[in-house]
Each structure stands twice: as C-alpha cells, then as structure tokens.
C-alpha cells in the first residue's frame, strides 16, 4: 500500500470529520455541554467551547483511529515479495 501523503491525509481527516460532526450532534441533543463539563469537574462558562472542544477531540480520536488503520494495512508482504 503506497499512497500519496495527500490521499492519506484525506483518508485520515475527512471521514473522521464527518463522524465527529454526527456524534457531536447526537451527543449534545441529549446532554447539555455545561452538565458534561460539570461532571468532568472542569470549569466552563461557555456552551460554545463545550461543543467545539468535544467536536475537536472526537475528530482527533477518529483521525487517530484511521491512522492506526492505515498503519496496520501496511504489511511488508505488499511490498512486492510475491511475484507471479
């Protein structure tokens, strides 16, 4: 699996972005970000910060997961070991 950096970046950042958006919308439909920060013991005064930080964290986690996925797809076998 040789893939240009640009395509790897797209694979990492784009699906995780979409999923983070969906998860955040779903999560905050049921939970007020202020309650969430309360239960985490974090001082927070702005809901906007709660939404944004959660979204960015989810995005980063998703990107990390794809990075992991890309890494384990790269097996040495694919580098031309088997020739017809």
């Amino acid at each position, binding site marked *: 699996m040789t*893939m*240009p950096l640009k*395509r790897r970046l*797209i694979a990492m950042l*784009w699906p995780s972005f*979409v999923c983070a958006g969906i998860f955040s*919308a779903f999560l*905050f*439909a*049921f939970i*007020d970000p202020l309650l969430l920060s309360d239960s985490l013991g974090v001082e927070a005064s*702005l*809901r*906007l*910060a709660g*939404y*944004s930080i959660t979204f960015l964290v989810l995005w980063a986690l998703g990107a990390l997961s794809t990075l992991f996925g890309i890494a384990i797809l790269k097996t040495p076998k694919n580098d031309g070991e088997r020739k017809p």
Partner: protein
Amino acid sequence: MDNTDNSLKQSLYAKRETIHPRHVTGIFATLRVTAVVVLMGIYYGLPWIPWDGRQAVLFDLPARKFYLFGITLWPQDFIYLAALLIVAALSLFFFTAIAGRLWCGFACPQTVWTEVFMWIERKVEGDRNQRIKLDKSLNKKHKVFLKTVKHGIWIILSLWTGYTFVGYFTPIIQLGYKIAALQTGPWETFWVLFYAFATYGNAGWMREQVCLYMCPYARFQSAMFDKNTLVISYDSARGEPRGHRKRSEDIKTAGLGSCINCKLCVQVCPTGIDIRDGLQYQCIGCAACIDACDDVMDKMSYPKGLIRYTTENAFVSGETKLLRPKVILYALVLVAICAALIYGLVTRDAVGLDVIRDRNVLYRVTNEGLAENIYTLKVLNKDNLDHTFRVAVTGLPGISLREEKEVFVTSGHVEEAIIAVLVDPVDMKSPSADIHIQIIAKNNPDLNATAKARYLKPR
C-alpha cells in the same frame, strides 16, 4: 491485478494536473447558474431574515434552541431533526434513481461554490486558453498580480461564507458588530476561519478532487442506478467514426459519424474526462458537455443530442420506464416520513415536563408520620404565550402535595420548581411505586403534560 484495475489505480493516485474547464453556455448551464443563484441566495440571505424580533432561522447552540421561522425546537425535539435528515437522504435516493447525479451537477455545495469560484477566476484571468497561457507565462509581474487579485477575492468571499455559517448558530447581526469591534469569542473566531479555510480550499484548490476522492455519495450512488436512470451518454452509434471534416462535406460519402472530434466536450468538463469513453464514475452529471456539443451540432447543421441526457434502456429499445418498484418504494417511504414529520410538528406538545428526584435525600418522615419525597420539576413552555401551570400528583392512595404549587413560565423558557409529595406509608404495599406528576395550564386545561416518577417508601 488486471490492466483496468491498474489504470484505475494510477488515475486514483496520479499527481493531479490542474483542470481548466472552458466556459460553456446553453440550457444546462443556464439551469446550473439558476440553481447556483437560488442556493447561494438562500445560504447567504437566510440568516438576515427577521421573525418576531429574532432571527428567522437560528440554530442557537449557546441557548440550546433551534428557531425555524414560527417553530421553536428544543433538544427534546431531536427526533424532528433526525426525521428531516432521513427525508433529505431519501430524496437524494429518489432523485438519483430517476435522474442520476442531479445532486452532483446542480445542487451539491461543492459544485455550487466551485461554480462561483470559477466564475471569479474567469472574470480575473480569462477563459480556459488565457488561463493555460497565464500558467505558462514568463511575465512574472502580470501573473503574480492576477493570481493575487483572484486569491484575494476568493479569500474575502470565503471569510464572508465563514461569517454567514457561524451566523446560523449565533445571531448574525451581533456577530457582525463583534467582528467589526474585533471582540469575537475565541470559538466564534475559530469557526469563522475554519469554515472560510474549508471553502477556500475546497472550491479554490480541491475542486473535482473532492468528488473523486472524498465524496461518499459518488461511491455508493451506483447502487441506486439502473437501466432506466437518466445518465449523460455519448451516442457512439451516431458519432463514430469521429473525425475532422469541412462543413460542406457530406458525412455519408466521407464515411464519418457526427462527432467532429473538436474535443470541446473534454475541455468543458470540470472533472476532465472524455464522455465519449462511456459512463465513468468521475462524471458528476453537470451536462456541460451536452451544452458544448449541442452548440457544435448547431454550427454544423447536424441534429442536436449527440451527447444527451438519456437512459440505457432508451438507447437500446427507445423506451424508459419511469415507475419501477425502486422508484415507487422510495416515493412511498418518502411520503410516509414527510407525513409523519408534518403530523408530529403540527400536533407537537406545547408543554414539556421533566422530573428529577432529589438525590441527596431519598425520603423523609414528617412529624405527622407521612412519607415525603422531593422532586425537581423542569417545566418547558414551548407555546408562544406565557402560562401559569398548576401541579397535580396521582398514582397512590391519599397522595398529596405538601403545599399547592404553581409555576409561571414565559414563552419559550424553562422554569424549575421543587415539590414535596406526601403519602401515608401505611398505604404503600411495596418499597417503591410509580407516581404521576402532571402540570396543567391554568387558563387552558388542554395545555398539559404528565411525567412518571419513582416514589420511595421509608424503611
């Protein structure tokens, strides 16, 4: 891996060459420009429409309320938003089954913004040939000047797009004042810049690559296609053998087809494909090649439609079946969900009630030997008028409130009230039981809500 796979892989991973689509006019170009103007008008205009002293469409995230003209939606109404998304997805399936990639060619934000960005590019740098010349030009000064102007306009438009986007979530006029005074909050600033960057990157730089590499719809849309779906096709039976000829030449004696091989269909294509090679996944169905080819056919005095919107069946048998099981099914489900959504919105409860048990004290025994449980009520008034609500409890013999409770809630707000509910423990058979707490508007008994709560008996 066979050859086709290899060539596909190469094309997927090949270094991108800039595509300079040629400007095109015609019926589909007019349709697309109309779609662009309408959709951009809606996007940029909607947040500015006032309604009852507030913004008509405002997804007020900081206050956790969604305003949609006369309707106010709360987080509790999430189901409507979900239903709306399902309606959107089903409409996409429905239109794709009938007319192919209509969405891609005319309504997708990627297409719409790219169209606007290309229009700016054309105004600044000229049409295709001038742009190609400019890219190769050695006149550094001229080149840098034009590119700076183009990117400058793109960036300004992108920033305005970002501002509009955030204006859907926080009142746009106040946001404007805050920006003018450079007093926006850190997150507002972040999201304006983020959305501006995404617009600039996607419509200015990425363009067709978004469709080719990023779009999930492009990958699964073939599942909705069948032989009766409208696609853009080149009539190879009529067009081939292609070749140059004089206008006066008779094609029959010259042994030529209708295609004069002018390659205009390739030059106008925003994804840079040759439609004459057959249907390709890169084709976003924008019909630019139809416009270009029809123009040429006119000039050659040949009949139009060498490239046309048609179906596979129409090519083979001349007939297209519109009403097929797939289309009927999509339509039925779509109508059903729309009906449920409208019914739900019309009959939506105007009052909401949440009951939370007091967590610190499970129960208390009063001096009279009665059990007492404490509850916090959250009364939500979704009605457009202010109301005073009376609280009532039922569900256990002799159940009563320690004192009568009334809650005044202004329109669109939530008020909390704490109630103490008394029961004689002798009347309770089990250690705990369900009770019902009801709120009723004093001036309109139809306006009421009931919630269930757990009552604990002292042990």
